[in-house]
């Protein structure tokens, strides 16, 4: 990864990136407001051409820390290089702009994050639960998740 090129690209759009040291692939911590612009640049720019969004990961750092993270794994097929983008969100009412307009694969990945963590992706075309039933209560991968007692009159816990 050519860090200098990447820095100059980001500087052109007034983004002050923070490198996360000792991480593989190269990891960039960016502000959530900058995310759509940076993604658009990385996707468009002929020097990088990150044409594939391999994975989006959600992360709940717990009530003590009070933050949530969304991590984007980008891959450029023509240049064979990877980049990781990290966005930190507040734990209360977490919202971030959707990137599904840039990468189609983000659609279902973001739905999964929404399903498990309750992070809202703004301007997502179809933000519904993807794995759990539509009328499920709560977001199971949050650290303070409390299972509901029953679902449609069926007990969740086993009868011992």
């Amino acid at each position, binding site marked *: 990864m050519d860090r200098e090129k990447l820095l100059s690209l980001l500087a052109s759009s007034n983004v002050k990136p923070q490198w996360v040291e000792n991480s593989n692939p190269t990891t960039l911590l960016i502000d959530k407001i900058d995310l759509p612009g940076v993604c658009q640049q990385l996707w468009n720019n002929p020097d990088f051409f990150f044409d594939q969004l391999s994975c989006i990961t959600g992360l709940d750092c717990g009530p003590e820390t009070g933050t949530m993270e969304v991590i984007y794994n980008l891959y450029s097929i023509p240049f064979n290089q990877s980049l990781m983008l990290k966005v930190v969100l507040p734990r209360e009412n977490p919202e971030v702009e959707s990137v599904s307009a840039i990468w189609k694969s983000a659609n279902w990945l973001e739905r999964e994050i929404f399903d498990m963590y309750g992070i809202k992706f703004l301007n997502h075309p179809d933000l519904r639960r993807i*794995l759990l039933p539509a009328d499920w209560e709560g977001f199971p991968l949050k650290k303070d998740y409390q299972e509901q007692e029953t679902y449609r009159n*069926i007990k969740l816990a*086993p009868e011992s």
Partner: protein
Amino acid sequence: MQEQNRQSAVSSGQASNNVEDFAYKESFGNSGLIITQLDNLLNWSRLSSLFPMTFGIACCAIEFMSTGTTPFDMDRFGMAPFASPRQADVMIVAGTVTFKMADRIKRLYEQMADPKYVISMGSCSNCGGPYWQHGYHVVKGVDKIIPVDVYVPGCPPRPEALIGGIMKLHDKIRGESIMTSRNNG
């Protein structure tokens, strides 16, 4: 576990599938006339061609598929997997039942025509299996959704064990009568 499964399959596999053992009571020479009880005839026709609905929802489905292959030959019991609930006779629930899937299972069960039977295959659909304690998304037993006739233990059960379960279902059908309503579950 495997040894246990084999044992149970062997012990329950002794019931005969031979028509003459239970259906035909008498025959008169070469006249082509047979006398039997209506119950026996109905039961024999029902149990001899149980079409299972293909319902593979987890790894148990691999063993279910294996049951259909030549070494185990499900076809010898007149069983061929059927992809529609409308013509299926038995639903073999092969795998983990999540709450999201439970809706679909119930609907497909309701779409099946009577008489219909359910075999719960494997620990997951019996009682939740490995998701017993921490699987918030798993129904702790498919019998909370639909009535189950036969439970086949194992994780996953070997094809022999599933065939053992099918034999048990045959036994159950053999004891039915049209004069009494079928005991659901």
